[in-house]
């Protein structure tokens, strides 16, 4: 199988779907000849034309609402927001409109749209272009939230997101764009709500999202040298959340660490930790659940400070050892 980067996988998922479904189109800022802020749509306007690769004015409120209106009337728009931080401006349309329309209308109408957006720090873009606000969206009933960590997952999950009849927020971590994995050429779909065990282990379960999946795997490889077997689970979608896979894993390992880049306070890790505490896995816990998340600080510009604001591989290794009383 050939390798693709995460970025190429996202593009391929969109292109393949657009070739066979006229209702699918992309709208967003600078996605035309420019190719999008991170180059995801580069070359697509040449294939699909400006009608379906719609370059928009810098109007996040309008384009998000336009996506909602188009979806409500039969299209399947993909909205690209240049940075996930800008969701603040699109928030009303996602939270008050897209998420609620079907329910408010008593089950009539549907809003099949995907809001794709790059998130996370690590590019020196500082406080307004580096956030991980996925927990906000996960909080809102009616939205689905996807956070792929690998190229393979990105392609399959994006296909599923486009096929879904609900508004889906699709977070692409900027540092994942260049990561590679084997990606089948044909279209395939990874169901939303199915976690992936990225590494099997018996001693401790790490639930990690996005770039933290990679850091957790790195930490797990290091810990393996010391005879510590870490299981790494990537939920892949926060909503719906595959609680069963996580619960079963924790029942097996008796220990849980949740790792995400988003600020720990109010982050989704709290949701996962609580889910376990409330579940049958509680009685199997043999150590306090640990959360690793970003510090409660705006992402700083200085690269050293930027790195220090979020969990590192060393932090994860230390957390595992602490959980195992092996410090």
């Amino acid at each position: 199988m050939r390798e693709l980067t995460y970025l190429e996988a996202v593009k391929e998922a969109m292109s393949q779907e657009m070739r066979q479904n006229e209702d699918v189109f992309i709208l967003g800022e600078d996605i035309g000849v420019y190719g999008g802020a991170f180059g995801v749509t580069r070359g697509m306007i040449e294939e699909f034309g400006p009608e379906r690769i719609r370059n928009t004015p810098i109007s996040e409120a309008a384009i998000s609402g336009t996506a909602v209106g188009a979806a409500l009337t039969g299209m399947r728009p993909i909205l690209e927001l240049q940075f996930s931080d800008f969701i603040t401006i699109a928030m009303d349309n996602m939270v008050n409109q897209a998420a609620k329309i079907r329910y408010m209308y008593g089950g009539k109408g549907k809003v099949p749209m995907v809001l794709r957006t790059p998130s996370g720090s690590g590019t020196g873009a500082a406080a307004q272009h580096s956030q991980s606000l996925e927990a906000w969206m996960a909080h809102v009933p009616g939205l689905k939230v996807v956070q792929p960590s690998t190229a393979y997952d990105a392609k399959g999950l994006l296909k599923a997101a486009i096929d879904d009849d609900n508004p889906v927020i699709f977070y692409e971590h900027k540092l994942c764009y260049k990561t590679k994995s084997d990606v089948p050429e044909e279209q395939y779909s990874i169901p939303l709500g199915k976690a992936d065990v990225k590494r099997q282990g018996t001693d401790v379960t790490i639930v990690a999202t996005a770039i933290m999946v990679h850091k957790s795997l790195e930490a797990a490889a290091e810990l393996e040298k010391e005879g510590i077997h870490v299981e790494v689970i990537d939920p892949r979608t926060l909503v719906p959340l595959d609680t069963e896979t996580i619960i079963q894993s924790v029942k097996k390992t008796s220990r849980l660490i949740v790792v995400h880049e988003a600020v720990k306070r109010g982050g989704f890790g709290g949701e996962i930790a609580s889910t376990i505490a409330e579940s049958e896995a509680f009685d199997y816990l043999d150590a306090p659940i640990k959360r690793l998340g970003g510090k409660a600080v705006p992402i700083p510009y200085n690269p050293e400070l930027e790195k220090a604001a979020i969990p590192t591989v060393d932090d994860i290794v230390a957390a595992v050892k602490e959980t195992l009383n092996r410090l």
Partner: protein
Amino acid sequence: MVKEIFMPKLSSTMEVGTLLQWFKNEGDAVAVGEPLFEIMTDKINIEVESYEEGILLKKYFEEDDEVPINHVVGYIGEAGEQVPDSPPGESGAAKEEEDVSDSRQPQLEDLVQQGITDTTSERTANEPAETEATAEKLRATPAARRAAREENVRLAEVPGSGPKGRIHQGDVMAFTSSHTALKATPLAKKVAEAEGVDLKEVSGTGSQGKIYRADVEGVKQIASSPVEAGGKRVKLEGIRKVVAQRTLQSKTTAPHVTLTTEVDMTEAINLRKQLLGPIEQQTGFRVSYTEIILKAAAYSLKMHPHINVALEGNHIIYHEEINLGLAVAADNGLLVPVVKNADQKGLAALTAECKRLGKAARENKVKPEEMSGGTFTVSNLGMYAIDAFTPVINQPESAILGVGRINEKPVGVNGAIELRPMMVLSLSFDHRVIDGAPAAAFLTELKEALEQPFKLLA
């Protein structure tokens, strides 16, 4: 202002005392120093005297009740003063001390007390409270708690390996593999231990099969009923009960090995003959072989400090003193008064002390301090037709010497057969702390000391 009467702690190992009898009734006047009640500890029966003057206002416990140390037994005060209707538990003064010294102590005490209450009041009603008290105070992971539930382990008894003593699942599993971890009241456990009843064979009548004292006693009765038919039943109590507990404890925890050797007592007999007069003149007592053997044992122990040891947790304690216990058969059981610093005492002093202690023991008047601190015990059955035997170590000591009768036997001496007064010494030792070779060397030393007793003058 009412004054607490509490269960005194009379020895380092004492956890509970059994109330044997009250000398006063509620409403009686009590003077300072007057005996209030009699208790039995794991070592001794003793009268507890009043520290206060006033009226005995309240007695919370009946005869035969077991009371944890420092728990309030009753109150003395002025007539008409109010006291609690039910036992208030631990004495206020004791609690403060305990809190400072060991934060877990009160909780353990609570558990012990709970166990007692179980037998005297509604059992099931006490059940949740006990679980709650255990659950709230301990640091244990959910998995450890689940394991404890499933294995019927009291978490309070499990040492935690995690931060701040947090108990993990592995700690519980390790505990269960090393303990008979059945759900039983502390009292039931004590009784089972004393009666030699395996708790696994007892079906508990409490919730979730919890075992109470009555359950243990029921099994004991069934087991012994064929023998009992027609005979009389005597309650195991007092010293008998203590001996039962302690010998069982010793035999089940210390791997006993017994070495024997035969001693030619010719010279020792001569020595005794020569010393009989002088010592009687000096002390009024006739020196016996016991004292000579004690003297020789003390001498040999000094030469072999590896025998004069005790096992405490993971440490071997080498005693500086040589304190010899002397097993004495009293009416109701075995008592072991202790001769302190026996190596520093001459035969006259030893004789005087042994006679006095033996008498006190037979009359049940040995003081607790006279029965503590032993480092080695001598048990002499030489007055009977016993040649050799396997004595049970008197823990926390690690070795005991059994002394048989002196008996004329034909022995080979320089190629000829002669009749000699022979005596067998049996040394039982705890193989956990003492190996065979040093034990053999010690016993050889002892044999030679008795065969050439002038060595004792060295």
